[in-house]
């Protein structure tokens, strides 16, 4: 069974080589002369005022959760698309109803302005 994954393994190895190779080449070939000033955090010439970790606005969370919901919906679409020829009308209608329920939610979020950033 693992034989089927050989092309993927080769693909992954090449990907790692290309991605990692660039970093290694930069590390080996680049010239580095670090000193104290270069290594200290830089904020427009001042000492840093605060940590880099700032609170995020709750609006990012709303966008992310709406994204997850539609991402899940798409996860349901994949097996449906692959198996559609064996499902007949019932399978087709099942997905239509599924999408209709989510379209109601989509209309709601659009009209409420949840997709607006302001």
């Amino acid at each position, binding site marked *: 069974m693992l034989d089927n994954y050989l092309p993927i393994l080769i693909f992954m190895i090449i990907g790692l080589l290309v991605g990692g190779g660039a970093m290694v080449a930069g590390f080996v070939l680049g010239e580095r002369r670090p000193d104290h000033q270069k290594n200290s955090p830089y904020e427009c010439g001042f000492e840093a005022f605060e940590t880099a970790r700032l609170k995020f606005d709750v609006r990012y969370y709303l966008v992310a959760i709406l994204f997850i919901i539609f991402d899940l919906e798409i996860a349901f679409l994949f097996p449906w698309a692959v*198996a559609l020829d064996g499902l007949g009308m019932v399978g087709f209608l099942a997905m239509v109803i599924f999408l209709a*329920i989510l379209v109601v939610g989509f209309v709601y979020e659009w009209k409420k302005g949840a997709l607006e950033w302001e």
Partner: protein
Amino acid sequence: MGFEKFLFYVLAATLIAAAGMVVTRRNPVHAVLFLVVAFFSSAMLWMLLEAEFLAISLVLVYVGAVLVLFLFVIMMLDVDIATLKAQFIRHLPLALVVGVIMLVEIFLVVGPGNFGGESFPNPAPQGPDYNNTRELGLLLYSSYLYPFEIAAVILLVAIVAAIRLTLRHRPDTKYLDPSKQVYVRKGPDRVQLIRVPPEPRRVPPTATPTSGVEDEA
């Protein structure tokens, strides 16, 4: 079979190590990143079980979306690491007791006596053109039609609840609306340059010496 077994142990060890790091790391962002590793290893384990679609959707949905949300939430909360650590130490004994009990239970239940190779033999291997995703789809949209539609309603509730609880309009925010910007017509909507005839210079009645110098320059 030998290599698959080797792969299984490597993945299982990675999974357990990553899960251990998730609960022991002090920095919650690092914990989430170890959770990514844990999810990847379990996806690979599922791949070994020939559940390809589930493995890929685990990566797509959990790593791709849910963990991004985790990161957002952690960054929103501004977690105080020192108090977290104190709580961790304080609850550690209780957590260890619960963990050990769960572990013993799992060994009792999932041991070879109940779920060993004799009672659950390997299914017959499928041919190379066997499509796991298709079989899943054939089952999901016929036998499990009703649970599938309930899942849609649960997603709908999630949309409504998330919007109700977090959406606040801020009328005082100032921003540009591009769709209105493109409708600006030449004429009244635009900034116009109006040629104003220069007024004759008025000489101030009593000029101080410094300003007088500037005026002449």
